[in-house]
């Protein structure tokens, strides 16, 4: 598809990745507008239901951003997220959805540039993959 623009839902933890995305803004970095952020208190708040719901509603990709291991504001929420995402990846793989559509990244409040890179990279990769096969059937 020529003009295909992937839709990405980005669940960002308030303390690290959301702040990292803020820093990208303050630093006036420019990147692709495909990811729409949703702020959550902790990446541990990201219920696998949110991710599957997003895919079922036509998201081409889902990004979960949390604090680096050891840095979680709530100590260990991100460790749970890691295990959930790994299991969820095994699930979506079994369901025939490309694993790359779900991405977990540790992005700290000081990593504005990393946030930019991740969003850009994810956009490019999703363009290569093409639209989600789960997009609503016409």
């Amino acid at each position, binding site marked *: 598809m020529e003009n295909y623009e992937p839709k990405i839902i980005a669940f960002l933890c308030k303390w690290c990745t959301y702040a990292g995305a803020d820093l990208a803004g303050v630093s006036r970095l420019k990147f692709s507008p495909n990811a729409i952020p949703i702020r959550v208190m902790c990446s541990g708040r990201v*219920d*696998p*239901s949110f*991710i*599957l*719901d997003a*895919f*079922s509603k036509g998201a081409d990709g889902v990004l979960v951003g949390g604090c680096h*291991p*050891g840095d979680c504001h709530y100590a*260990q929420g991100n*460790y*749970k997220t*890691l*295990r*959930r995402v*790994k*299991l*969820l990846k*095994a*699930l*979506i793989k*079994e*369901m*025939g*959805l490309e694993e790359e559509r779900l991405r977990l990244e540790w992005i700290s409040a000081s990593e504005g540039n990393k946030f930019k890179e991740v969003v850009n990279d994810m956009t490019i990769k999703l363009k290569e993959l093409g639209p989600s*096969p*789960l997009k609503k059937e016409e």
Partner: protein
Amino acid sequence: MTKANIAFYWASSCGGCEIAVLDINEKILDVIEKANILMWPVAMDTKYEDLKKMKDKSIDVCFFNGAIRTSENEELAKILREKSKILVAFGSCAHEGCIPALANLFNKKLIFDRAYKETETTMNNEDTLPQTSFMTKEGEVHIPEFYDTVKTLDQVVDVDYYLPGCPPTPNIVEDAFNKFLSGDLPPKGTVMAPVKALCDECPRKKKDKMIDTIYRVYEKEADPEKCFLDQGIICMGPATRSGCGHQCIKGNMPCTGCFGKTPEVTDQGAKMISALASVLAVEKELELDEKKVEDLISKIKDPVGTFYRYSLASSFIKRKVIK
């Protein structure tokens, strides 16, 4: 007092639900006393033509079991919807898709190829596959279309109530009969079983859910006193509606989830994935790097079959993507 008219129908299912009606034993006699059974494929020979001739809403309650696998299933669901005042999804197949919906990991072509060509005992040199119509000496014969995707009953018609279970347990069936025949109806859309998850009625001793690793049922003899999850055996109980009398648990087997999700949940499998992954090795999570986490997660075989055994058709994703 006039008798109520009730009907049973059997779509894509194993047939167990048809028989489960009789699990209420002699109570069936009370039902017969209060109701005429107009249709019951396992026990009566009601013709579709006769059904079509019935007036709309002439059936008071229709208990529809089975998922929607074929055009016949769908057609009958629509007819029965028109003919029935109350349409009840009876059992896990009609409710959430159940085992037939695990075929959503394949599509029509893959299933046909396997069933009619590739199975080890099949000889099909001409690659003959079922056709929806073909000519015989007697004329053109039609058989129903086999869909790519199995659906739940409420994905094709409006459903009033649900009886969960594979099959619904006698207490659930009896309770439903009593409610319908007495007119004591819950709000539309109710799943007629308790709202809490199975742990509520499970008598096993629960500890701390410090699960280091996962065992498959055959790998470990479960202590019949202790919570399965505490022993590292995946039990869908925490994510599954109660009301079944924890029969599997009594048989020292973990819950596999046939009563479906609890009312506050949208996707049973996603919730259990989250719960299990969250507590898995939680005690020593700080020591686990990504690789170790992957090893741990890889012990959970077949996530779909484990977490969506009964609910795949009603889950967020519903079916496998096959290109």
